[in-house]
């Protein structure tokens, strides 16, 4: 086992979340919002989708040295999808293609001809791709579907049996069918795609012949890391400074405003470029500590998260300061003062819970914009390491081929689909969570 820096942080975060969940278990006030979330169909479906992304991301966060592949560091996910990783072609090929995307000189029956060469892996088992392909794809999809179906049945029956043995009652669960259906979709679609990719490149291949589907899956971890770690850096700064500035006014306010206006007036790209270059120089000077490519890429990713976090807290801080300014004049805060409640208790009890809706909304919006920001930064070469798989790098690579005729569309589409599903699920889930935790929305129940 090898723990990269981001791996450690991700698992720490996971532990903290589990800890919080355990601490809150069985607490009366938390029960109602939780029931509301579990009863919301949209919320539960998006949760299932999110959990699947997190699952893939976590699989991709367990790294070890592989015995073959000349001692390279690979993740558990890499190990699971080894065929995908190994099936490298020469250059571009379209989804489900059996030939390359451009013509080359190929030897046919001893004669050199200008034609589409066959792929090394995609559709290799076919003798005549033209006539056999459609039927073969259909047949393979059915097999994939059936495998998925079997996996689904096993998993759900195991789960429900376990649940029944532990709890000994049938749960009352409003969103049961939507959850089952979405789980079913995820399991069958992924097993279908997985089975098909043993024989084809379902999303085609990119310029150096790498499977785009593999890239898209690997990018999930990068997206999640950038989204969550950056937020983790940003949130404490924004919340602490925003609330303190709004609540105490006076010189505290002046100081904090001074800091964030100064920070805001420096172009974020400059700061990011500077810090990424600094890390690179550092790594170049200490080569002994950063022996493998993956360790270096990981370090760069971590620093990108840090610096993105440092540059992006100001917007939320400003919002929170304004909201706190409003809240501190509310009568319940004055009543708390009259009751002799201490300052920090007022901040925690009265101010913080009442600004959480703003935090939640802006975190989710930021999450999506951070994933996008990564794409933009890759464009000017200060984003994640070029060897790291990320949707940004995929888009950046695809950008150059947009003008090509016929167009190479699959890298962009794959990145778009994966990103879209993640961001949409996160948005919908955040909506539900926000509604559930707002007691005022429960008036008409």
């Amino acid at each position, binding site marked *: 086992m090898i723990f990269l820096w981001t791996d450690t942080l991700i698992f720490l975060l996971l532990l903290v979340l589990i800890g919080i969940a355990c601490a809150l278990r069985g607490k*009366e*006030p938390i029960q109602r919002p939780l029931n509301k979330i579990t009863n919301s169909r949209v919320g539960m479906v998006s949760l299932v989708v999110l959990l699947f992304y997190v699952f893939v991301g976590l699989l991709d966060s367990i790294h070890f040295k592989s015995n073959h592949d000349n001692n390279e560091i690979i993740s558990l996910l890499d190990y699971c999808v080894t065929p995908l990783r190994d099936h490298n072609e020469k250059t571009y090929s379209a989804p489900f293609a059996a030939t390359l995307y451009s013509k080359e000189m190929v030897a046919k029956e001893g004669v050199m001809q200008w034609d589409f060469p066959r792929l090394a892996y995609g559709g290799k088992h076919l003798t005549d791709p033209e006539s056999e392909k459609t039927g073969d794809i259909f047949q393979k999809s059915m097999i994939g579907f059936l495998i998925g179906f079997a996996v689904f049945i096993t998993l759900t029956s195991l789960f429900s049996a376990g649940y029944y043995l532990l709890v000994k009652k049938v749960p009352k669960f409003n969103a049961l069918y939507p959850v089952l259906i979405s789980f079913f979709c995820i399991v069958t679609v992924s097993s279908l795609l997985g089975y098909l990719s043993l024989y084809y490149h379902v999303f085609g291949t990119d310029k150096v012949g790498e499977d785009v589907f593999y890239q898209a899956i690997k990018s999930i971890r990068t997206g999640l890391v950038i989204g969550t770690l950056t937020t983790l850096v940003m949130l404490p700064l924004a919340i602490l400074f925003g609330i303190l500035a709004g609540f105490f006014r006076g010189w505290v306010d002046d100081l904090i405003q001074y800091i964030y206006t100064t920070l805001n007036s420096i172009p974020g790209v400059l700061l990011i470029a500077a810090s990424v270059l600094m890390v690179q120089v550092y790594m170049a000077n200490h080569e002994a500590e950063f022996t493998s490519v993956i360790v270096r890429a990981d370090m760069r990713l971590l620093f990108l998260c840090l610096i993105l976090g440092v540059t992006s807290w100001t917007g939320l801080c400003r919002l929170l300061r304004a909201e706190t300014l409003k809240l501190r004049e*509310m*009568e*319940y805060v*004055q*009543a*708390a*003062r*009259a*009751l*002799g*409640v*201490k300052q920090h*208790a007022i901040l925690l*009890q*009265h101010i913080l*819970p*009442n600004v959480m809706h703003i935090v939640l909304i802006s975190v989710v919006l930021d999450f999506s914009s951070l994933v996008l920001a990564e794409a933009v930064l890759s464009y000017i070469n200060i984003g994640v390491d070029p060897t790291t798989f990320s949707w940004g790098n995929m888009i950046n690579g695809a950008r150059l081929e947009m003008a090509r005729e016929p167009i190479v569309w699959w890298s962009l589409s794959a990145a778009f689909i994966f990103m879209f599903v993640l961001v949409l699920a996160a948005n919908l889930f955040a909506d539900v969570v926000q509604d559930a*935790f*707002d*007691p*005022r929305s*429960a*008036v008409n129940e």
Partner: protein
Amino acid sequence: MTKSLLQVEKLSVVFNTHHKVVDDISFDVYPGETFALVGESGSGKSITALSVLRLLPNNATIQASSITLTGENLLKKTELEMCRIRGRRIALIFQDPMSSLNPVMTIGDQVAEAIHQHFPLSKSDTQQRVLELLQQVELPEPDKRIKDYPHQLSGGQRQRVMIAIALAGKPDLLIADEPTTSLDVTIQAQILSLLKNIQKETGMGLWLISHDLALVSTIADRVAVMQKGIIVETGNSGDLFSRPQHPYTQKLLSALPSIQSCLNHIAEQKLPLLEVDDFHCYYPIRKGLFKRIAGYVRAVDGVSFTIQKGKTLALVGESGCGKTTLGKSLLNLIPGGAGTVKIDGIDLHALSGESLRKQRANMQIIFQDPFSSMNPRMLVGDIVAEGIKALFPEIGEEQRKDRVSLLLEQVGLPGDSALRYPHEFSGGQRQRICIARALAVRPKLIVCDEPTSALDVSVQAQIIALLKTLQREQGISYLFITHDLAVVAEIADEIAVMYQGKIIEQGKVEKILFESEHEYTKKLIAALPKLENNSK
């Protein structure tokens, strides 16, 4: 009998297909008369007015046999035709003059805009008409005021502008939805007489919607009493108030605080609890780059009074006189207070930090708005327990829970209230929670900052009764801040009248109310709307 101006027959309004807000009501408004629709909040008065104008939200449906305006059925009109009726034939004045005017347009432009909606006049003619209207609503110096923005006007002046806008279309019927609720008593009297005068001049119908029975009795010709969407009684103003038929009307009338009620007070001397001497609260006005102090707003300017143990001092005054500032700065909740505030011999303003916090238990406060005075994200139990946790940390969790449920019981709330959120309660119940929160730390004095002015009459009577019971049982003193002299008569032992930051008159309640010497106090008492037929 003359032909009716507006005739509503069997009107029902249903929300979300099952929630009936207005239930099968019929009434007429005649030209030149003042018709008043009276009821407590949530009885469906405003919805009735909006449904006549067909301005209801989308989830509401109107079921009525007919709503006719001088013979035309409004329900059969198209939306375009309704647009020509709204403002032109029927005009509406809302309760809150603060939010009804556009803050970035001058009032002249806003009145001109309303005129343009209905009459295609040239620019100079419009200007002329704006001036006429502003004169008609008796806005002082209309030719100068025409270029003012809403924030430059007082509340009463803003309401006058709203009336001018409503009159711009020369309507046949003017609907006034609680036109004076957010105004001071003296201003309220002025606005009402203005409405009455304009009605006499133009001969339009005036449909007044109000919760204030006393006010209605002074101005209306005919009154309909509404309860839970049903009109329970209709009648001429005189008959209805002197001989109410329906039990609900009788209940409303009896709940009305009366200025006579102070005559039964028993005066007995007790030890002083709170001594306030020469108390000031100044706000600095800062100017220039270095925020140099250029002067002070004297919100409270040298106030002295004492409150005896187990007694109530009422602090009376119009909005802006500094009474709320005084209440809050006595508790050290806002900066700028200076002077001696001794409670039981301890000077609160000489303390600060931790020692002040420890003394907080002595004095508590109840606010006016029961909706913003509780954290919406806290359970009622936690809200009530907050003070105990902060000031008596030695009390264990079990004991605290017992104490909270005892307190909730004392203020008359159901036992399961502790595990509910504030928004699940009505205004009166929320005010009870606030009282329980204040009682939790066993205060000697509670500052009640207009605790009943956001509540309905019958609820107000209940809250006053609760406060009195608590005073009798626990010997708490109250500093009762209010603008409503009738409520004062119910609860207070002494009155202090405040005007522009100073106390101008102070004394026993019956002395102030009936033998006042000061001009301003007399004016306040005179402006108080009284039930006209009640004093037989």
